[in-house]
C-alpha cells in the first residue's frame, strides 16, 4: 500500500468515526451488526432467509404474537387481534381486531380487508413461500371492518391455527393498499404496522428503519435502527469493541463467547430456539441404502467430542429427530451413542470389513456447519470411513444438496416448535428432494423405504392432544429405528450487546432468530 492509499484510508477512518459520532449523538440509534452480506428482500411472505427475517421482524405484526423474548407456543398472546372465538365444532375462528391501528407512512387504518388480503396472499403459492402452512384455511373473510372469520377444512389443535397467525413468516399482516400499489416491488417497500418502519436500504451496506410514532402500543423509545451488513466476524467484533455497534450477531462457538464476555460493558445472550444439526444419510444410493451402514456411521460419531470442541454453553446434544424443547419431543428413542466396536461389526456385516468410502459430501463454507462437518469427517476417518468433502459457497450448497448430489447432508434448522413442520419437511415422502413438492427430505425417507407419512398426516389433524402427542412420539421412535438421519446437536443463537441496550423483556428465545426490538427497547445512556 503506498502512502497516498494509506492517507486515504486514514482519512476515511477518521471521517467515519467522527461522522458516526456527529450523526448519532443526538438521535437514539440502535446499530446492529448482521452476519449476512445482504438481504434478499423485505416481503415477509417471501423471506425464507434468516437475514431477511431479522430486518422484517420489527416492521410487522400478526393477529397474535409470541410473548417477546419467548418462542414457546404456550405463551401466544393477542397482537393485532384483541380477542378471538372458536366455534364449538372447532371449524370457525373469529378474530376481533384492535381499532385505530395505523399502517406506516399514511397507508391508513388496519382493517379486516388487510388481514384477509394478507392471509390470502400467504396462502397463495405464487406469492408466498409459506403457503403449505395455510392449506387447511378454506375460507378467510371480513365480517365487518374489524372482524375476520377463518373457516378451516378440518378442525385442528388450537396451537396449529394460532401458530401460523403469529408475527412470523406468513402470519405477518401487510397493507393491502401498499401491496397492490407496489406489486412485486413490495419487497423493497414494506408497509406494516410494527414499531419500526422502513426508511432506507443500501445494498451490501445497511438497512435503516425509523420508529413508527403512531405504534399502537406506544411510540418506541429508540428512534432508529441501522442494520449493518458485516459478514466478517472480525470486522463485526472490532466495530462492536470500538463502540460502533450496539448489538451484533456473535460467533456460535464457546471460545468466542468466552472472549467477548471479558470485554467490559458487554452482555452476551445465548438463547434458543437454536437450530438442530442433523446428519441426513442419502438412502437413494449406496452405501446408505443399507441400514447397517447408516447405523455404523451413527455409532462412529462422538457427540460429546463435538460438543466439547464447539462448546457446551452453546450446544445441546440431540438424539430425537424432533429438537429438544419442541412440543411432544421425546428422548425415549433408539440412541446412537459413540460405539466404535459396534460400528465395526455392523460395517463388516454390511460387507465393508476394511473401511468404507462414502463418496461425495457437499458442505457450505459457513462455519457453523463446516466446523462440525470437519469434526465428523475426522471422527469417521479414524475408523477408516472416508469421504470426498467438497466445500462450496452457501448458495451452491443449498442448490446442490437439493439436486441430490451429496451422500450425506449436514443441515441446521429451527422451525415452529411443534413436531409437525420438522417431521413434514425432513421426513415426509412428499418433501423428498427432487419431487415437485420437495422441501428438505435429503434422506429420501418414505420414498425409497417405507416411512412415517401416515403418522405425520394423522397427527397433524388429531384433535385429541394426548393422542396427537403419542403419534408424534411414535414417529420419532420409528424414524430413529430406521436411521435415515442422525440428530447431532442443537446450536443456540449468540447475540452480544452493550450493557446500555435494554431489550425491554427477558430474552430466552426468538422464533425469528433475531432479538426483537419493540416500543420498550431502550438505550440507557
Amino acid at each position, binding site marked *: 500500500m503506498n502512502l497516498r492509499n494509506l492517507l486515504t484510508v486514514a482519512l476515511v477512518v477518521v471521517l467515519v468515526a467522527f461522522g458516526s459520532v456527529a450523526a448519532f449523538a443526538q438521535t437514539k440509534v440502535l446499530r446492529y451488526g448482521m452476519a449476512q452480506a445482504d438481504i434478499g428482500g423485505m416481503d415477509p411472505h417471501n423471506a425464507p432467509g434468516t437475514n431477511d427475517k431479522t430486518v422484517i421482524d420489527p416492521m410487522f405484526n400478526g393477529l397474535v404474537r409470541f410473548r417477546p423474548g419467548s418462542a414457546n407456543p404456550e405463551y401466544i398472546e393477542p397482537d393485532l387481534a384483541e380477542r378471538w372465538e372458536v366455534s364449538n365444532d372447532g371449524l370457525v375462528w373469529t378474530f376481533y381486531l384492535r381499532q385505530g391501528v395505523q399502517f406506516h407512512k399514511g397507508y391508513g387504518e388496519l382493517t379486516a380487508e388487510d388481514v384477509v388480503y394478507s392471509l390470502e396472499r400467504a396462502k397463495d403459492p405464487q406469492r408466498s413461500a409459506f403457503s403449505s402452512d395455510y392449506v387447511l384455511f378454506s375460507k378467510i373473510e371480513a365480517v365487518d371492518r374489524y372482524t375476520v372469520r377463518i373457516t378451516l377444512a378440518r378442525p385442528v389443535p388450537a396451537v396449529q391455527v394460532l401458530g401460523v397467525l403469529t408475527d412470523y413468516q406468513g402470519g405477518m399482516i401487510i397493507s393491502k393498499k401498499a401491496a397492490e400499489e407496489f406489486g412485486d416491488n413490495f419487497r423493497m417497500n414494506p408497509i406494516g404496522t410494527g414499531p419500526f418502519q422502513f426508511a432506507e436500504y443500501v445494498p451490501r451496506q445497511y438497512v435503516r428503519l425509523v420508529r413508527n410514532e403512531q405504534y399502537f402500543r406506544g411510540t418506541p423509545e429508540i428512534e432508529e435502527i441501522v442494520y449493518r451488513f458485516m459478514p466478517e466476524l472480525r470486522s463485526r467484533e472490532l466495530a462492536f469493541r470500538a463502540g460502533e455497534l450496539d448489538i451484533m450477531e456473535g460467533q456460535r462457538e464457546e*471460545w468466542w463467547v468466552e472472549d467477548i464476555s471479558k470485554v467490559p460493558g458487554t452482555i452476551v445472550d445465548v438463547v434458543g430456539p437454536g437450530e438442530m444439526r442433523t446428519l441426513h444419510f442419502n438412502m437413494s444410493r449406496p452405501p446408505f441404502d443399507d441400514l447397517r451402514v447408516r447405523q455404523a456411521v451413527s455409532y462412529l460419531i462422538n457427540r460429546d467430542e463435538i460438543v466439547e470442541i464447539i462448546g457446551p454453553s452453546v450446544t445441546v446434544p440431540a438424539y430425537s429427530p424432533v429438537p429438544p424443547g419442541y412440543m411432544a419431543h421425546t428422548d425415549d428413542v433408539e440412541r446412537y451413542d459413540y460405539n466404535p466396536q459396534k460400528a465395526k461389526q455392523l460395517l463388516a456385516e454390511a460387507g465393508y470389513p476394511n473401511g468404507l468410502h462414502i463418496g461425495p459430501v457437499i458442505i457450505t463454507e459457513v462455519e457453523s456447519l463446516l466446523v462440525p462437518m470437519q*469434526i465428523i*469427517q475426522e471422527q469417521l*476417518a479414524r475408523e477408516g470411513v472416508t469421504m470426498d*468433502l467438497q466445500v462450496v459457497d452457501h448458495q451452491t450448497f443449498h442448490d446442490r444438496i437439493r439436486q441430490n448430489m451429496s451422500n450425506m447432508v449436514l443441515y441446521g434448522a429451527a422451525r415452529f416448535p411443534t413436531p409437525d413442520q420438522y417431521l413434514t419437511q425432513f421426513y415426509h415422502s412428499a418433501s423428498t428432494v427432487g419431487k415437485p413438492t420437495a422441501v428438505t427430505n435429503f434422506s429420501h425417507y418414505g420414498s425409497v423405504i417405507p416411512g412415517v407419512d401416515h403418522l405425520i398426516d394423522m397427527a397433524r389433524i388429531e384433535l385429541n392432544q394426548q393422542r396427537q402427542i403419542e403419534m408424534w412420539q411414535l414417529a420419532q421412535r420409528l424414524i430413529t429405528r430406521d436411521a435415515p438421519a442422525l440428530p447431532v446437536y442443537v446450536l443456540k443463537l449468540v447475540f452480544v450487546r452493550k450493557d446500555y441496550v435494554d431489550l425491554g423483556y427477558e430474552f430466552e428465545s426468538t422464533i425469528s432468530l433475531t432479538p426483537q426490538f419493540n416500543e420498550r427497547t431502550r438505550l440507557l445512556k
Partner: protein
Amino acid sequence: MTEAKVGLSPAQRKLRVFLRNRAAVAGAVLVILLVVVAVAAPWLAPHDPVRQSAANRLKPPGTENYLLGTDRFGRDTLSRVVWGARVSLQVGVASVLLGMAIGVPAGIIAGYKGGRTDQVLMRAVDVALSFPTLVLGLIIVALLGSGVWKMILAIALVNAPQFARVARGPTIALRDAEFVQAARALGTSDLRIMFRHVLPNVMPDIITVSSLWVASAIRTEANLSFLGLGVAPPTPSWGNMVREGIDFLGRAPWLAIAPAAAIFLTILAFNMLGDGLRDIADPRTRGE
C-alpha cells in the same frame, strides 16, 4: 572479475556469477530446505496434521509438545505448516511445469512459423493475459471445481500464455540464425529444428522466469485457498490455514501468522533464486 577469465569452463563461470549473489545463494538454500521439508514431512511433523484433539484446543505456541500451538480442533499448527509445504510446492512446481509444457511449444511454434500462425496464437495469448491472474484462476476453478490437481491445472492454464510469450521472443531472433539456416539447408524438418536447435537456446530464459513464477503460483494457490476455492479439508495448505486462522487473530494469532510467514519465506526464496538465475542468463552480468 579479471582473474575469472582464464581457465574456467562456461558452467564454472556461471556458478561463480551465481555464488557471488549472496541473496541468490540464500534463496537456493531456502528452496532446498523447503523441498527437504516437503519430502520429509511425514518424519519431520511431530503430529498427524489432520488428527483432532478435543482436549488440546487453541493451545498457545510452546505448550507441551506443540511448538506452534494448536487450532480450534486441537490440530498441531507446526505439523500443518510442514505438511502444507507439500501442497504449496506441489502446486507451485507442477503448475509451472505444466504451464511450461503447454506454453513453451506454443511460443516456439508462433515465433518460428511467424505469419498467420503467430498472429492467431499471440492474439489468443493477449486475450488470456488481459484477465488478471487471480480472476482467470477463479473462473477456471469455478468451472473445474476445487482440489489440488484442478488447482494445478487452473494455475498452469494461467501461466501457459506467459510462457508462450517468453519463448516467442528469442525464437524470432534464432529463426534466422546461421546454425538454424544450416540445419534447414541440410533438410532438417521444422519440428526437429524447433525442438533440437531452438528449444535448448530458449530454455535459459524459461528457467529463469520459472523460479519467479513458482513463487507467484504459490501465491495464487494461497489466494485461491484463502478464498475457499483451494484444497479441500482436512488437507492443510498454507492458504486455507490463513483463512481458518483469520477469525482467531485476537485469540490465537499464531494460526494465521505461522502459515503466512511460511508463504512469505517461500515466495522470498524463489524470488531470490530467480534473481540469481537471471544474473547467469543475462550476458551483461555474465562478464563476457
